[in-house]
């Protein structure tokens, strides 16, 4: 073989040689005229519809793109639902009257019955994966059909429950600031108030939380308790009828009969308040009366001493034990505070909302939320790696949504209460609740670092150097003239958006 290769021509001439070989292939004759006749005939057809032929691939690709887009939009469509016996306000809040309970039937078979005098909102998760239910006030009972990938959540005041496929009962007494969650089956994740984030609650456990004392307990629920409820429940499928549902004569509040066991359904009962979530959005909402037989009864709430106070059940309303501050449309507060709301930013802060902004600009609520959004510039620090690091905190301190205790900006005085809780929602950050004393320099604030939404705080928890957990503390709120919820600046540029949704005052 070696000898043969030695006499080979170069690579290029080898190809030339092969090309010559191909040239020796005999081609059979010359093209006959009949071939032209075929071409001529086909040319007629081709030229008759040239544009359509040329557009063929374009049309095919366009049709495919349209199909894909349509499929995506159909798939992304949120869960549909129908609402019965509930009035829908312009702000997207559903409300039941004092005479009738309401029902929401979701397309996937899930249902929510709402007690009388309740207000709630619905925000649907894209791709029909579920819904976020937010009750502004009142009591509701959910029956959620379990589906793979479903995401259902319930916001109850500062408490949030992520449904991971389970059955449970939830009660939220807003006037008392008390929350109770009883597991019937499976487990949930719960957070809010003093409860650590992502707290697991399993079958047979009951979580009780008290906002007044910032405490919570988790106890094992005797199984017979649940069984007793199954036996005692008196609720029937009258939810959509005009008849009152609740049996007030001696029966526990919300007491209902248990339906036959339905493994596919995850049922909850809740009584909550949360104005955070927005309304139904773009999905179609039909308000109509649902046929009573289609309403699946849901189980009863567990009677608890927590909720047995006269403040909830007595026919004559007692003096409320806490105050819910009301946000006026012009930013003026009432029911506890008489001052106005405002928003203020540090040197490196720019706002996208509110649109027009000056120092201590009045902040008007939108959909009962005091919101601010924008960006905060990064802090500029010197001696970063030394103990004497200094940053421009004094000028670039972040952004604050605040409110004056009184309209005349004087100290709160005798109207001051014993504790305060601020409900808010926003991007994850270390928020700070601040209180300013009348007569102190503007920049001096007493504060609580890493403040959580709904956390009930007393004056003694405010410190003059909260970031270091030291300094003077407040004796009371009497001398306080201003409160702020601060989104502090950070070492990097950061966008912010947060809303104060409620302020609760405790005696």
């Amino acid at each position: 073989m070696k000898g043969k290769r030695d006499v080979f021509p170069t690579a290029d001439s080898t190809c030339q040689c092969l090309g010559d070989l191909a040239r020796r292939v005999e081609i059979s004759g010359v093209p006959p005229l009949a071939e032209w006749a075929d071409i001529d005939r086909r040319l007629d057809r081709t030229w008759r519809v040239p544009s359509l032929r040329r557009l063929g691939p374009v049309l095919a690709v366009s049709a495919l793109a349209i199909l894909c887009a349509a499929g995506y939009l159909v798939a992304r469509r949120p869960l549909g639902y129908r609402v019965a016996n509930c009035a829908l306000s312009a702000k997207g809040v559903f409300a039941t009257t004092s005479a009738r309970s309401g029902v929401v039937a979701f397309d996937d078979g899930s249902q929510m019955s709402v007690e009388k005098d309740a207000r709630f909102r619905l925000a649907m998760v894209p791709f029909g994966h579920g819904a976020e239910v937010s009750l502004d006030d009142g009591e509701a009972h959910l029956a959620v059909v379990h589906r793979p990938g479903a995401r259902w959540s319930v916001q109850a005041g500062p408490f949030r429950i992520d449904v991971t496929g389970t059955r449970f009962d939830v009660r939220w007494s807003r006037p008392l600031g008390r929350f109770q969650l009883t597991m019937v089956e499976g487990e949930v994740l719960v957070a809010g108030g003093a409860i650590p984030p992502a707290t697991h609650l399993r079958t047979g456990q009951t979580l009780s939380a008290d906002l007044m004392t910032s405490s919570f307990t988790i106890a094992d629920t005797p199984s017979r308790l649940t069984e007793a409820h199954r036996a005692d429940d008196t609720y029937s499928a009258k939810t959509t009828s005009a008849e009152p549902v609740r049996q007030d004569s001696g029966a526990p509040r919300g007491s209902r009969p248990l339906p036959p066991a339905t493994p596919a359904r995850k049922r909850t009962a809740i009584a909550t308040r949360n104005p955070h979530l927005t309304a139904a959005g773009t999905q179609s909402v039909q308000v109509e009366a649902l046929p009573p037989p289609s309403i699946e009864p849901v189980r009863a709430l567990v009677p608890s001493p927590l909720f047995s106070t006269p403040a909830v059940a007595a026919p004559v309303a007692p003096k409320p034990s806490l105050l819910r501050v009301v946000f006026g449309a012009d930013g003026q507060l009432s029911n506890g505070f008489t001052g106005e709301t405002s928003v203020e930013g540090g040197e490196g802060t720019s706002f996208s909302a509110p649109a027009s902004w000056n120092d201590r600009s009045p902040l008007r609520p939108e959909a009962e939320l005091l919101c601010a959004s924008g960006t905060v510039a990064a802090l500029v620090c010197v001696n970063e790696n030394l103990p004497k690091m200094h940053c421009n905190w004094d000028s670039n301190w972040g952004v604050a949504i605040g409110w004056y205790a009184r309209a005349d900006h004087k100290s709160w005085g005798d109207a001051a209460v014993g504790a305060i809780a601020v409900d808010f929602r926003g991007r994850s950050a270390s928020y700070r609740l601040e209180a300013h004393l009348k007569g102190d320099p503007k920049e001096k604030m007493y504060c609580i670092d890493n403040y959580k939404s709904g956390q009930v705080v007393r004056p003694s928890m405010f410190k003059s150097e909260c970031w270091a957990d030291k300094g003077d503390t407040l004796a009371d709120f009497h001398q306080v003239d201003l409160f702020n919820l601060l989104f502090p600046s950070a070492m990097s540029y950061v966008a912010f958006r947060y809303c104060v949704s409620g302020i609760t005052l405790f005696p």
Partner: protein
Amino acid sequence: MAVSPPLPQTAAPELDSSDAGLVCAARAGDRRACFSIWSKYAALVQRLVWRFLGPGSDHADLCQEAFLRLFKRLNDLREPAALRGFVVSVTLGVARNEARRRRIRAIVGWVPEEVLPAAPTLPGQDEAREAARALYRLLATLGAEDRSLFVTRFVEKMDLSEVAAAHALSLSTAKRRLARLVARVNARLEASPVLLEYVGLLGQGRDP
């Protein structure tokens, strides 16, 4: 199949027989110009297709396809005088597509990979005929682009600029690809004793 071609009418104006004149007339819808173009280049198209794909039975269809595509794309021809290059380019495109189709059909098993017919197509010695079959078997293993380059450069003996133009390549790119093609062909030659023998005989100065 006694179909008479649409020959030029006697009353029609004289047709400019230059490439540019034919292109302009064909663009205007003059069917006589189309016929003239076909008459002028049918042999070239047929030869290119045959040399690209090897002897076969369905090349007439491909030749028709090449002309149909040519007439449809006449408006894309920027320089009417360059009709010949355009014909070559279009024909090679059709042949490349056919080669790809055949390869895919062979992969999915619809038909066996292209096999030369047993009928004698080469005049002369049996060795040359056998070598030609081996050559087209080798070419069938190349990509359509490489095959096209081989036909234009080594079979049609086009110069480099013509090869580059026929493939819409720059001259340097065409050179690079030809060099790569030559290396590939020589590498695959090792697997073909018939071709090795044929090339070896040539190297010794003997006429195979």
